[in-house]
């Protein structure tokens, strides 16, 4: 497979393949971003 055929949206199978690969990465980055956002918003405890 090449980059061109990876982004071939003409068939349902290929659309689902791209949705899975892009969707999984987006969901993981979203969760990571949510943790990072809460990390910066939570007060650092006193030592």
């Amino acid at each position, binding site marked *: *497979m090449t980059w061109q055929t990876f982004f071939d949206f003409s*068939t349902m199978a290929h659309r689902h393949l791209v949705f*899975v*690969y892009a969707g999984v990465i987006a*969901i*993981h980055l979203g969760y*990571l971003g949510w943790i990072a956002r809460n*990390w910066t918003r939570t*007060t650092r405890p006193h030592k």
Partner: protein
Amino acid sequence: MARSSTLRTIAWFWLAASIAVLVVGFREAIFLAPTEATMGNLQRIFYYHLAHAILSLVFPYVNLAASLAYLYWRHRDPLRALSADALAVASAEVTVLYAGICLATGMLWGKPAWGIWWAWDARLTTELILFLLYVSYLMLRRFSPTGQVGVLSAVLAVFAGIDVPIVFMSIRWWRTQHPAPVFGGDGSIDHAMLPAVFWNLAGWAMFGIFLIGFRFALERRRQLAEQDAALLALEASLETPQ
């Protein structure tokens, strides 16, 4: 402070290594693995689906171990119990993430491969139950009004852990629409596909461990901030003239 700085450096290296392994895994899965004979390129969903499916059965055991540790330490060593509780919530969230992605990628694969989004077969149903158990675990933690959240959620985690071997064995115990095991047995995977399987499994495992570690650190930071706030309130109340 030096320990915290070292841990932060290790975390950055671990994240960088995870991303590097995931990039190799992506290349193996999309460009190097052979095209499957019957499903064609659609089968490449398998490399993400399988990694998330396996890890959604591994991370619950981290949650189970941390929950049992919490129950053991809650009277003997409350500070250590708090750490165990933080690890339990971190692993439960990542379990929900991985099980949810496993279900979603399975449905996106099932529609073009089987012609249906969902089948109420044993593997899919038990995985859905696992996902819902950990969602209920998180909702219990979020909405329980009592001061017994740690104990209640730890007990629920023990019951949720029982579903894990049932999910794993479901395709051996019952006839299912879901394919038979791909490692060993009659449905063994083509050896040329193994590098893509293992690179993706390693990459998502490393990234999952990073997520659990980061979420654990956030929960510990929250717990310590709460303790600080409680101590400050106590000091302020003692200073108030009676």
